[in-house]
């Protein structure tokens, strides 16, 4: 029966590889085999909760229903066989040698918080607040891979090859090889993401916890796991034990704590990791599609004490706490003022904060690396949302990548024609530092880079002494706030031209703000 365990490991490896591959290929020119949103479209927590809270039906929600349907048949196969975070947790759990055995009561206590979390997320979504992103495993792992793992890996490979080439003067074949790597998978630009250490620490905490108790995150906190647990309850695929001599090995080994003292198991907790099948000394455990009618009194093991279902695990005290906590986020839902530059045509600030799941796709794909994860710049509720940092990169005029990879359409898909008319902000010149204004010397770097065909930055000739100085002005009707002027401005430390976010006046779910050109 080793086959089942190997099959599971291969499946985990393949899905983790696909997951990383998809994020790796989320870059210009988006020619990956799978769309960038694939894993998020398969995520019922994100899709359903966002749809409820936003009162709309997200494109591709049907795929997440398929996942729920499959769960009705197979149980929580997703957690054990597919989930990228689950795989990483399993790898960490491998280093956990001390077999800590919990009692049934402890196990029950451990598994209840995730249902509580799911309830909070669900109730909040009924009130129009989407907080599924906070603890969604797919979001956590995507953010880690996109903003941490891939930049670090590319940086290391880049720097190593660079060092080799420079030290040994290998400007021939090795340099050519390096260049082909760059254009194939390394990427031309080494990306940097601000405060990505916080993202890493968040992930690290989950992983370290798994070293102390296997799959602790999945058992205790994961709201997606809780959602799947509901649907896994009546699953058709069941664990069957024949000829049991009560050696209790399966119970000791179960990473989910799903096997009870009576050797019965909690179906909604089983992730089909196949350990019990593999470890059983009697080789008597198997998973079969059991016939409903025959099932009763057929198993050779006695049923344990009837356990309360997960939903009823919420006591009155818990429910009050739940009600309290679901109200809590509304305090922060004041009409949000936009403090940062959002990606092109992003929804109105409060809607954007609600719709954005902080997956990091837009930041990963941004060709100039200008989209950065916010820490507290957009307020506490805006953590890890994308914002444009012109000091790092600008919004490329004819680029529409970020809208094309957003799984929840917090950044709408735009055509190039729409994009070039989309306003992100407005540029403003600081005449106290601008070279032609202050030092009376020619510069015009901002005007030169302005991508608007008619130039949103105009030059006026000034005769100063015996020479002519060209000074920049901004035509506010034409400026889209793409911020290339700020990126390229040679004045340091503060740029002399800066882009400020503007109040966007379009209504809910409307298209981009259009400007006349």
């Amino acid at each position, binding site marked *: 029966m080793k086959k089942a365990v190997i099959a599971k490991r291969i499946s985990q490896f393949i899905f983790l590889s696909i997951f990383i591959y998809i994020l790796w290929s989320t870059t210009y020119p988006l020619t990956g085999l799978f769309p960038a949103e694939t894993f998020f479209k398969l995520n019922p927590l994100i899709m359903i909760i966002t749809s409820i809270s936003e009162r709309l039906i997200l494109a591709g929600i049907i795929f997440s229903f398929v996942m729920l349907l499959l769960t009705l048949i197979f149980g929580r196969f997703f957690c054990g066989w597919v989930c990228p975070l689950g795989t990483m947790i399993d790898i960490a759990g491998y280093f956990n040698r001390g077999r800590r055995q919990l009692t049934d009561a402890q196990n029950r206590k451990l598994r209840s918080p995730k249902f509580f979390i799911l309830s909070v997320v669900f109730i909040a979504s009924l009130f129009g607040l989407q907080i599924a992103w906070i603890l969604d495993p797919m979001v956590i792992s995507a953010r880690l891979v996109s903003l941490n793992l891939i930049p670090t890996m590319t940086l290391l490979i880049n720097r190593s090859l660079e060092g*080799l080439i420079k030290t040994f003067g290998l400007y021939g074949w090795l340099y050519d090889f390096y260049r082909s790597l*760059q254009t194939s998978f390394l990427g*031309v630009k080494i990306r940097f993401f601000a405060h990505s250490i916080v993202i890493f620490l968040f992930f690290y905490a989950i992983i370290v916890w798994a070293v102390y108790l296997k799959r602790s995150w999945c058992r205790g906190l994961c709201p997606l796991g809780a959602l799947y647990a509901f649907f896994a309850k009546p699953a058709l695929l069941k664990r069957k034990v024949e000829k049991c001599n009560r050696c209790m090995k399966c119970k000791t080994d179960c990473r989910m704590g799903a096997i009870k003292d009576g050797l019965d198991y909690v179906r909604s907790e089983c992730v089909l990791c196949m350990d019990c099948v593999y470890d059983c000394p009697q080789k008597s455990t198997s998973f079969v599609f059991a016939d409903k009618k025959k099932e009763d009194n057929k198993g050779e093991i006695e049923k344990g004490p009837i356990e309360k279902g997960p939903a009823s695990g919420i006591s009155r005290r818990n429910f009050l706490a739940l009600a309290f906590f679901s109200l809590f986020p509304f305090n922060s839902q004041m009409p949000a003022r936009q403090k940062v530059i959002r990606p092109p045509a992003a929804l109105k600030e409060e809607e954007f904060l609600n719709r954005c799941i902080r997956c990091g796709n837009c930041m990963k794909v941004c*060709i100039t690396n200008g989209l950065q994860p916010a820490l507290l710049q957009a307020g506490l509720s805006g953590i890890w949302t994308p914002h444009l940092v012109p000091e790092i990169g600008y919004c490329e005029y*004819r680029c529409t990548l970020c809208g094309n990879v957003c799984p929840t359409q917090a950044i709408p898909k735009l055509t190039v024609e729409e994009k070039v008319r989309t306003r992100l902000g407005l540029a403003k010149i600081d005449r106290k530092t601008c070279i032609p204004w202050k030092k009376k010397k020619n*510069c*015009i770097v901002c*005007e030169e880079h302005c991508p608007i*065909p008619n130039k949103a930055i105009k030059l006026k000739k000034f005769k100063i002494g015996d020479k002519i100085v060209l000074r920049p002005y901004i035509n506010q009707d034409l400026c889209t706030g793409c911020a290339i002027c700020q990126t390229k401005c040679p004045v340091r430390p503060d740029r002399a031209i800066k882009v400020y976010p503007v109040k966007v006046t379009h209504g809910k779910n409307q298209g981009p703000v259009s400007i006349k050109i």
Partner: protein
Amino acid sequence: MKILSVGFLSGIFLELFSRAGLSHVFAAKSNARPKKNIKGFHDLVVVKGADPALITRKAVEGLGGMEKFVKKGSVVVIKPNIAWDRAPEYAANTNPEVVAALVQMCYEAGAKRVNVFDIPCNSPERCYENSGIKKAALEKGAKVYFCDSWNFVKAAFTYKSPMEGWPIFRDAIECDTFINCPVLKHHGLTELTLSMKNLMGVCGGSRGLIHIDIARKLVDITDFISPDLTVIDAYRILTRHGPSGGDLKDVNLARTIIAGTDPTLADAYAAKFAGKEPMTISYIKEAVQRKFGSADISAADILEVNV
């Protein structure tokens, strides 16, 4: 893995080394590209015709053929203008067919390797792709690549120059033949972007600062690189809202290629061609004043051909 880590460590040491300024100790007096001073049959060849590739070929043949500039087994750099994320019709970048024709001629003359690169203002990937130059040059067998920020050398001049110590892309200096292939277009500061302005594309650092006292800096950098051949693409001319353009109404179809060995003369002719008085363009004026080149079109031997 081991070899990678060795590379990584040595990379760090090298960086510290160069940051400490020790690399200057070993630097030669001037690291400029050696001047070849190859003269063509004429000072300038101007060819007009409908096919960009054909007129490019005729222009170079008029100077004496590519064999004059490219020796067998040599490494050639073709530096077009790939600065903007614009399609070829917008005339913000060099015409890809002109670049492709040059690449082909270089290989026909026996070049070992032809490198095509530029340091764009927009995202390099998009510029290379959308200008059509990457595809066109790759088809003819050229090496098209991006300029890595660590592969720059600091310019050292024999005379006092504001460009002293400016980072210059290594491959632009270490080549046997340098062909400068700009596009003739409007520019807000210098009126026109011509061959000397195009050489800003091999400079790294904060290039915006080159704009201050631009005339002198451009002549110095042209002197530093000393292109062997200058082929100005005036097939499409961007007349307004340069250097990036973006409106087809601003583009004139002139169907002309200007080829020469003296960058100043080529620029002066191109300026005249675009309807500007050459001596009003600051860097042409500077070049003439320093006797770096000549802008005297009437005295020059110019071959004009219609195809």
